[in-house]
């Protein structure tokens, strides 16, 4: 035991403290100190609802050759088009851990964000331990506005893929890179099928690395070329199926597009607040004090900073999604600036850097802590209604969804597990303005229609249900022909909620629909007669 204590690496102490700070200001705050909730907690955007629906769908159907039918407007032959390694990982994790699907995503993505942060620490540490200690505190900024948007709004796969990037980069610092060609191929393939762009980032970093190496050595090693060739071939084999699907179902974007314009929710460099000056200082200093040796951490930081601005305006980069991880990638520049100050005052000793890193971790956690707990867009009443639909209706049932405050984040409705027709707000507003009671509403079938509900027509030929059956999938529909109708009884828009209730009551009075489920906020009516004239057209104020 004494020997074991002697062997304790003080770096582990810093990692443990970092992890505690990370968990406390991050996922524990977001999830209100509890992992298992009875409903999807802190779902704040459509993508988060969508990822939940994908996960639940995969747990049901077991694989991703075809989309679960309710995620494809009821069709059973839609090609699985989404990069799905992340969803597979979460599905396996859900089965193994016993956690319900709706409790998985934020925790899972946070853990991988933690792993990515520590991997970046290890990369910097392999080069310079003191800079690594001083870099770690900035990584806590992943939970500051707006860097945390990715985690809060459902872009979870980015964080898993970032860990693959960082391991790939770590290999560049290790000798005998050539022996790791198979593992690198697996990482590249996994990146591609997790979040396509990350494979491009790894490739770009390796490309720049070998170019720089070739310039410094004034030659390109034959072993390097063989290594790249083997990695390329194996990666191509591993991604072949998904690459073909991607090519056939997605319309090819132009390689270059207009400049990305930041929206209010996107991370900006200014979101580093006062710490941005340290990052800038580190960026400016590093080429001068480390100019003799090409350093991998500086390479990653520089490239990710460059990609985060995307001056080439290329579609190969998701500009603002890279920025979610800027606190991780750019931390090295923060560390360098503090290290430089310590060097000037001749205090650049390992124990001092360690202590400052430790103090900064605690200080940043304390100063920047924010309670982030939030019920989110799906509360208990809505979730209970969604679960009721899944468990108590025929799997081929269709359901029309009336106005609800959060339903414009439409992927939330994919969790009904049924083909749902979402009535658009404009349809309600028009009817209210026209003082009209009617059975006709305009809307569309809610499902991930990114690729038009693509299906295999024949070998390597794809058709799209959306093109072929557009009239069935969208437009003006008669609500009398739906199996179920879902109404929100309460809304921040009282007029719309009242209109919902007027329609619902008319349907019940006509005895064509009956209440099959209701709670304080949601009512679900079931069709009893399939009478095309289930409601008498008329005026609201009659």
């Amino acid at each position, binding site marked *: 035991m004494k020997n074991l204590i002697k062997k304790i690496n003080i770096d582990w102490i810093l990692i443990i403290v970092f992890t505690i700070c990370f968990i406390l200001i991050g996922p*524990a705050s977001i999830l209100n100190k509890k992992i*298992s909730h009875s409903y999807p907690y802190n779902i704040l955007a459509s993508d988060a609802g969508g990822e939940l629906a994908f996960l639940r769908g995969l747990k049901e159907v077991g694989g991703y050759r075809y989309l679960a039918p309710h995620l494809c407007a009821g069709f059973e032959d839609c090609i699985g088009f989404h990069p799905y390694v992340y969803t597979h990982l979460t599905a396996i994790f859900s089965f193994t851990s016993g956690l319900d699907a709706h409790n998985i995503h934020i925790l899972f993505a946070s853990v991988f964000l933690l792993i990515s942060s520590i*991997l970046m620490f*290890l990369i910097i540490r392999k080069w310079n331990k003191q800079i690594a200690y001083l870099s770690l505190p900035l990584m806590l900024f992943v939970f500051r506005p707006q860097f945390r948007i990715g985690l809060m709004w459902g872009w979870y796969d980015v964080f898993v893929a970032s860990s693959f990037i960082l391991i790939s980069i770590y290999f560049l610092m290790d000798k005998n890179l050539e022996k790791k060609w198979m593992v690198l191929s697996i*990482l590249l393939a996994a990146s591609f099928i*997790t979040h396509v762009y990350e494979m491009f980032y790894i490739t770009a970093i390796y490309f720049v690395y070998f170019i720089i190496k070739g310039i410094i050595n004034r030659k390109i090693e034959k072993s390097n070329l063989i290594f790249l060739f083997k990695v390329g071939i194996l990666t191509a084999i*591993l991604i072949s199926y998904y690459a073909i699907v991607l090519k056939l179902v997605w319309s090819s974007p132009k390689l270059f597009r207009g400049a990305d314009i930041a929206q209010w929710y996107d991370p900006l460099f200014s979101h580093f607040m006062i710490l941005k000056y340290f990052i800038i200082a580190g960026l400016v200093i590093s080429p001068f004090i480390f100019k003799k040796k090409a350093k991998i951490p500086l390479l990653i930081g520089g490239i990710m900073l460059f990609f985060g601005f995307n001056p080439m305006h290329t579609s190969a980069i998701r500009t603002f999604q890279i920025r979610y991880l800027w606190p991780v990638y750019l931390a090295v520049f923060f560390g360098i600036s503090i290290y430089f100050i310590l060097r000037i005052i001749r205090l650049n000793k390992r124990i001092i850097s360690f202590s400052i890193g430790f103090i900064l971790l605690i200080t940043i956690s304390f100063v920047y802590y924010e309670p982030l707990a939030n019920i989110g867009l799906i509360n208990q009443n809505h979730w209970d209604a969604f679960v009721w639909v899944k468990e108590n209706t025929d799997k081929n049932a269709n359901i029309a969804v009336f106005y609800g405050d959060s339903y414009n984040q439409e992927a939330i409705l994919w969790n009904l597990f049924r083909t749902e027709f979402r009535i658009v707000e404009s349809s309600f507003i028009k009817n209210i303005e026209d003082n009209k009671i009617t059975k006709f509403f305009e809307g569309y079938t809610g499902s991930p229609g990114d690729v038009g509900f693509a299906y295999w027509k024949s070998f390597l030929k794809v058709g799209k249900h959306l093109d072929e059956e557009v009239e069935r999938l969208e437009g003006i529909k008669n609500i009398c022909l739906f199996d179920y109708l879902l109404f929100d009884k309460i809304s921040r828009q009282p007029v719309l909620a009242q209109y919902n209730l007027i329609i619902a009551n008319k349907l019940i009075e006509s005895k064509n629909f009956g209440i099959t489920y209701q709670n304080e906020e949601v009512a679900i009516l079931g069709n009893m007669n399939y009478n095309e004239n289930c409601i008498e057209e008329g005026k609201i104020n009659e």
Partner: protein
Amino acid sequence: MNKTKITNVLNLIKKDFLYLLISYLIAITIFKIGFYKESFFSLARILFSFYWLFVIPGIFITYTFSTRMKFIERFFIGFGIGAAIIGLISYYAGLIGFHVKYHGFLLPLIVVGVAIIIILKKKDRD
């Protein structure tokens, strides 16, 4: 692979798994500090799932190309590699019809098994 090398690898695995157990206990403590409203058993099972699915397979994969890695690096590199391999295999297994509900039990066993075979057959590593 000769007996000495097998003994060395076994000793390394034994040492790493002791550290793994310690790290698991520390992880439960950290998570209990953060998620104090979550039951101990639930946290233990959640963290065990991360270890079973990603850390253990990943660590075995790292043995196939390095026996000199420090545990601190092996743990986190292994975590990511384990996730990449398990995720990729699961994706393709799902495509051919093998239901994902069985992957959590079988895939880590398969990955560890394959890694052990590679370790035993390998002549040299760093």
